């Protein structure tokens, strides 16, 4: 297939999902809170997304006079770019992917590390106390969770003997990695929530304490990019979980592989939203100690056991 | 009196406090900031122990656990006394007393003007009564019409007798009384009619509830918490009482007295309280008016620029320009005019007679070592001799101070018997009718006659003669005069003896009587007295609020400007806040106007002068500007604006600043704000150098904020202008004072000269002022505001005045005429108000019966008098206290032409 077409379709689908998530999240949250949610604009309130987009586009795009302007403008772009780039290595179906890299996982980890720059620079450039505190919290949180996010995936890599997402999916033909790599999954899932700074780990933008953290000063479409970036992140982490631990496109063959992939992805998106609906935000020190004292040893233990078992089986 | 300064320690509710011996317990507790509810006690009126509300518990010693209830206002403070205010028994008694008081109090607060600043409300809350258990009907009364000042609503009365004690005992009024018996006691007049006393307005503040309320406020009623206030100084006479002026919706709502221990104490006179209505008058000039041609009518213009561009070339720098100042304009406004025209072209807008007399007074106060008393010191005088001046009508608060002074001798006698000064009724019982001697020498019966030991009636020459005789008896150096009549000689000897033996003798005279002889005679007496008694005092009543300030500025009298005009053409004549037709004859003013190419008037009301000139500039009144006034004792006091200027109205000095800029044809304004103006004044005229020391500058801050003019509960901020525009406008800035047009800021206890209103937690009524004082009846915390610019130099150098007595040869049909001032009417500004207008008498002439018989006049006849070729019509009133050959004619009443009195006049029937 034509590369450009694939890229176009991928971008369209991914961005549509991210945008649609705005509506999905609000509706789901209201269901769990015994409300109705947005249901006025269009059928079931679906056009709320469009209304919101139009609103974002037409809002005054204000650049604070006290900010570091080039960095301020650049920051939201970094987030979008790094996340969208990662989607390039994700196989949606056996024959539908942009680029089958033999370092797919490393590419994902690298991009997600770069994504932190967006937040740190955005908060820094805003030249505002709340933004700055938010950015500092984000960098510490990301650094922490980055460490064992990578480590938790090593078990998967060892079992599939490859960094390529396609190869990993192929390796799950007999058994999804969720079973042998259960601890890896738990650590990765928690790290993923923290990496996208979604509730309950939205400490960098905690409204109650920091107004909106690193993006306090953003408005208009720049804010929109942070906003959509967050949903893109959710989609990405969900897609990676589905790919690495739940067999990606694998599934009974009466339905096309892409369907199974999206079904699994959406399941994890729902879990993300359910987490938001039910859990309160931990204190900052609790977040850090959970990372360093529990998840890091767990990830290391997982590598140790996986390695030992693999060696033993050889 | 050494007892009075002894410090004692008392224990109140377990804490130790220090206070001074000689006070009563209530007074001491209030000074310490402790809240004891009370009704009948008022610092100025003393204790009578009538209301039983100030109950506290006293313990014999530290072992006494039971204690006994006492009335704190009747208990002298003693060393080591132990009391409890919060004790349950005492609180129960206080609550029960209030409950009793409230049984008949109507359900009126929403429509009662006292509500929100009501002592009864405060005390009800403070004593803890909150539920009515009394289920029976309430007593009612019929009300009276008490004239245009005071509203009467007897149902609200709680029978505390404060009004009686104030009106009858303190100011000596006769026409308010208590009627009926037991719980039917009624306070009112014997019939409807205006209260006669000049101080009746203080009933509004003295009455702890809403029986007596301000009728002028009722017309545009506003609660205390909604008023935007500023500390001000009364502009209606030369005494300079301190006032609080209050604004709401851009109009002046009322005037209350502002405590100043050295000047007016707790009270002000009715002219000061109710004379404010001219500020809101329809006749106010709100926009500039110009007249292109002399024959055309003035037209209103709205743009500042228009007025400034319409100034013709006769205003340019090389042209002759003359400025006429005013004794009713502030010192700064007069000074700004002086800098516009230069010292050689500045004229005081007063007649030559007034100019000379005021100058004499000022020079004497500066050069002699005779004390000029404040009102507080006047209250301490033990012998008073009043020469020629009707102080009740020209300086009313001085008269009230004299009324207090007469009690000094009997009070001293009572203290010797061990009765403390605050214990009002025992003192009155002991002293009965005895008084300190007051001698009054005037042409006609005086309002103070009732407290006088001896009165003297005669022509000005007679009065001066008496004065000279007294002076010569006191000291041989003074010009001697042996009086022709034995009675008079006896009186002179009696007065001289009294003055000689007095500790604090006081001579009161004034320039309003218009007679140099009398003034000189009075000054001579004071010089003679001073030789032997350093406590000798002399008080001189001046005509207007800033007569002294104007006299201190260089300048010449108005008459000289007129004589210049009759010789040469004046290019531009600038008249500052002055109606020249009140200062000199119509002919002279007409000459002045005819010979001026261009006449500019700055004033706030349309009057004869401002009607007929080329340019009228609207300037702000005392309520809308800052300024300094210097009162008759030389005390400089500053007033601040309560109303922010609107339309084209600006302060005189600001307008004149613009004129200076225009005349000099450059862009720099000599001053941008009030502080710069004052600095410029102080630099140029060293006589005013103390001004800068006392007044806080506009950049003064308390807790980093300006002092708010508004109370914490100021309401309607987001709605009062919403009919014009729903978005709230920025709060107006005031760059000229440390006060803000705002409720924001720390308003508690600002410097005493900047207190915009009295309020402390729990005290919403005027009684809150107690918490602003060092000592009740004493000075404000941080000292009383105002600074004396004219101070005697301590050495007694002044020499006696040589008095040439001149006799006037009367023609046929001629009588000597002396002026009679009316408290309501003789002052220009207050006369424009509705309430005052109803009390202004018709122009009158007093004649004694014999003179009337000669002319065949009867009471109430309208007659004509010709004085210096001008004719006036007046109503005859027969008054037998007058000496034959003397007539007393009202002056300065609205509609009357200027007459230069004293003079002789030809009397004829109409």
């Amino acid at each position, binding site marked *: 297939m034509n590369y450009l077409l694939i890229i176009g379709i991928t971008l369209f689908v991914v961005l549509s999902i991210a945008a649609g998530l705005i509506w999905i999240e609000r509706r789901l949250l*209201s269901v769990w809170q*015994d409300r109705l949610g947005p249901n006025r604009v269009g059928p079931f309130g679906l056009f709320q997304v469009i209304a919101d987009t139009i609103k974002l586009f037409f809002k005054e795009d204000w650049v604070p006079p006290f900010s570091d302007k080039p960095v301020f403008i650049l920051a939201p772009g970094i987030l979008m770019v790094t996340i969208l780039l990662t989607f390039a290595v994700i196989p949606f179906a056996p024959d539908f992917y942009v680029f089958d890299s033999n370092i797919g996982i490393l590419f994902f980890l690298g991009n997600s590390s770069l994504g932190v720059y967006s937040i740190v620079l955005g908060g820094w450039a805003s030249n505002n106390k709340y933004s700055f505190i938010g950015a500092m919290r984000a960098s510490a949180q990301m650094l922490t969770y980055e460490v064992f996010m990578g480590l938790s995936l090593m078990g998967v890599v060892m079992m599939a003997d490859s960094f390529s997402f396609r190869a990993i999916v192929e390796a799950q033909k007999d058994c999804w990695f969720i079973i042998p790599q259960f601890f890896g999954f738990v650590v990765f899932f928690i790290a993923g929530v923290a990496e996208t700074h979604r509730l309950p780990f939205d400490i960098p933008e905690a409204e109650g304490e920091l107004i909106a953290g690193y993006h306090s000063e953003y408005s208009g479409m720049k804010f929109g990019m942070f906003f959509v970036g967050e949903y893109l992140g959710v989609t990405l982490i969900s897609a990676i979980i589905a790919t690495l631990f739940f067999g990606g496109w694998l599934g009974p063959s009466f339905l096309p592989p892409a369907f199974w992939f999206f079904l699994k992805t959406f399941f994890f998106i729902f879990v993300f939203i359910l987490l938001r609906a039910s859990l309160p935000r931990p204190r900052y020190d609790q977040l850090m100690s959970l990372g360093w004292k529990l998840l890091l040893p767990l990830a290391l233990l997982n590598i140790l056991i996986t390695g030992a078992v693999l060696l033993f089986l050889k | 009196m050494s007892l009075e300064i002894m410090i004692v320690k008392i224990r109140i509710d377990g804490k130790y406090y220090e206070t001074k011996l000689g006070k009563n317990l209530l007074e001491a507790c209030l000074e310490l900031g402790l809240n004891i509810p009370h009704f009948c006690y008022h610092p100025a009126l003393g204790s009578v122990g009538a209301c039983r509300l100030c109950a506290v518990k006293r313990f014999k010693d530290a072992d006494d656990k039971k204690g006994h209830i006492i009335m704190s206002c009747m208990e002298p403070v003693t060393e080591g006394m132990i009391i409890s205010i919060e004790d349950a028994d005492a609180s129960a008694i206080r609550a029960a007393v209030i409950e009793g008081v409230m049984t008949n109090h109507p359900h009126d607060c929403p429509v009662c003007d006292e509500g929100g600043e009501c002592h009864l409300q405060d005390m009800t809350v403070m004593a803890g009564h909150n539920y009515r258990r009394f289920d029976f009907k309430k007593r009612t009364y019929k009300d009276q019409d008490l004239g245009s000042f005071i509203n009467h609503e007897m149902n609200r009365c709680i029978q505390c007798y404060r009004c009686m004690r104030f009106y009858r005992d303190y100011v000596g009024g006769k026409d308010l009384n208590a009627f009926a018996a037991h719980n039917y006691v009624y306070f009112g007049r014997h019939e409807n009619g205006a209260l006669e006393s000049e101080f009746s307005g203080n009933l509004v503040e003295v009455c702890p509830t809403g029986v007596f309320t301000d009728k002028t406020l009722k017309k545009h009623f506003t*609660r205390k918490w909604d008023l935007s206030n500023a500390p001000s100084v009364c502009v209606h006479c030369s005494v300079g009482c301190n006032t609080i002026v209050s604004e709401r919706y851009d109009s002046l709502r009322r005037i209350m007295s502002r405590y100043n221990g050295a000047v007016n104490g707790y009270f002000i006179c009715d002219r000061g309280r109710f004379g404010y209505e001219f500020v809101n008058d329809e006749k106010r000039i709100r926009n500039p008016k110009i007249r292109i041609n002399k024959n055309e009518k003035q037209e209103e213009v709205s743009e500042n620029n228009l007025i400034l561009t319409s100034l013709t070339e006769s205003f340019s720098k090389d042209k002759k320009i003359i400025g006429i100042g005013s004794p009713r304009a502030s010192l700064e406004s007069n000074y700004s005019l002086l800098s516009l025209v230069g010292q050689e072209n500045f004229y005081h807008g007063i007649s030559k007679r007034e100019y000379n007399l005021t100058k004499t007074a000022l020079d004497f106060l500066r050069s002699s070592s005779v004390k000029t008393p404040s009102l507080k010191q006047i209250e301490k005088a033990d012998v008073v001799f009043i020469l020629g001046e009707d102080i009740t009508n020209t300086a009313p608060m001085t008269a009230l101070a004299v009324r207090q002074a007469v009690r000094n001798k009997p009070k001293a006698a009572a203290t010797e018997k061990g009765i403390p000064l605050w214990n009002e009724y025992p003192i009155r019982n002991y002293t009965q009718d005895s008084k300190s001697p007051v001698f009054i020498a005037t042409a006609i019966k005086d309002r103070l006659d009732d407290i006088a030991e001896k009165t003297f009636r005669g022509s000005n020459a007679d009065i001066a003669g008496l004065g000279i005789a007294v002076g010569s008896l006191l000291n041989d150096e003074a010009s001697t005069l042996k009086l022709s009549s034995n009675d008079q000689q006896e009186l002179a000897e009696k007065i001289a003896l009294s003055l000689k033996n007095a500790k604090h003798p006081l001579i009161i005279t004034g320039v309003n009587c218009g007679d140099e002889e009398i003034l000189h005679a009075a000054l001579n007496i004071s010089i003679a007295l001073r030789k032997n008694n350093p406590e000798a005092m002399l008080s001189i009543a001046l005509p207007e609020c800033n007569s002294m300030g104007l006299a201190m500025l260089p300048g010449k009298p108005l008459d000289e400007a007129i004589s210049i005009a009759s010789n040469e053409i004046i290019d531009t004549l600038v008249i500052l806040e002055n109606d020249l037709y009140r200062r000199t004859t119509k002919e002279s003013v007409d000459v002045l106007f005819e010979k001026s190419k261009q006449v500019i008037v700055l004033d706030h009301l349309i009057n004869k002068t401002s009607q007929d000139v080329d340019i009228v500039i609207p300037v702000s009144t005392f309520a809308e500007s800052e300024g300094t006034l210097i009162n008759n004792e030389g005390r400089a006091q500053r007033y601040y604006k309560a109303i922010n200027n609107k339309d084209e109205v600006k302060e005189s000095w600001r307008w004149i600043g613009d004129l200076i800029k225009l005349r000099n044809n450059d862009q720099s304004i000599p001053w941008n704000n009030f502080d710069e103006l004052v600095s410029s004044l102080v630099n140029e005229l060293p006589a005013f150098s103390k001004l800068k020391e006392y007044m806080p500058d506009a950049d003064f801050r308390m807790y980093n904020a300006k002092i708010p003019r508004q109370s914490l509960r100021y*309401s*309607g901020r987001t709605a009062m202008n919403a009919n014009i525009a729903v978005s709230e406008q920025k709060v107006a800035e005031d760059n000229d004072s440390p006060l803000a047009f705002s409720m924001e800021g720390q308003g508690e206890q600002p410097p005493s000269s900047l207190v915009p209103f009295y309020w402390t937690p729990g005290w919403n009524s005027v009684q809150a002022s107690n918490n602003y004082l060092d000592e009740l009846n004493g000075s404000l915390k941080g000292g009383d505001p105002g600074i004396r610019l004219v101070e005697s130099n301590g050495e007694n150098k002044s020499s006696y005045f040589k008095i040439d007595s001149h006799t006037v040869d009367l023609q046929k049909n001629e009588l000597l005429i002396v002026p009679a001032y009316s408290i309501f009417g003789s002052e220009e500004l207050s006369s424009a108000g509705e309430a005052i207008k109803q009390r202004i008498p018709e122009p009158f002439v007093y004649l004694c019966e014999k003179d009337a018989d000669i002319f065949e006049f009867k009471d109430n006849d309208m007659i004509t008098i010709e004085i210096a070729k001008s004719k006036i019509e007046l109503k005859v009133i027969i008054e037998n206290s007058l000496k034959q050959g003397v007539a007393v004619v009202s002056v300065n009443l609205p509609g009357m032409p200027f007459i230069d009195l004293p003079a002789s006049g030809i009397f004829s029937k109409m």
Partner: protein
Amino acid sequence: MFSILRTIWLTFLHIFHRSETVEYPEVKPYLAPRYRGRIVLTRDDEKKERCVACYLCAAACPVDCIALQAAEDDNGRRYPEFFRINFSRCIFCGFCEDACPTYAIQLIPDFEMAEYDRQNLVYEKENLLISGEGKYPGYNFYKNAGVDMGVKRKGDGLTEEKPVDVNDLMP
């Protein structure tokens, strides 16, 4: 750890609960008579304005959105010369109703007062005054108060004795 999972599970179960949302404007909610909505000025049993312009509502208002000016008719009866509420500032706290000593100012169950132009949210007395008595029929302040302002003579009030005869000295 377990409690976290239990929380998530319990939240998830809310999928099967009924929604509490009332779909206004298709469904109008029930508003109690004491609901704090639009502010009105009521009249007394003689159909005259109840408001006596005492300024207590203005003082109680935490956002200072009430401004008025007292005036008097020929009988001395107090009424507001103007009475203005800036509803764009009003927070419908009802303090004004609590403060009102004459039951004049009342909050009613009506909240549908949105406007496109904020200026239209400034209500003057003509907009506020209704012709009825509102929640407290029959109450007339002047019949309870001690003043004589044309409603009753002194001594004719509900809780008053006949005026005292000042010349009477009987015990």
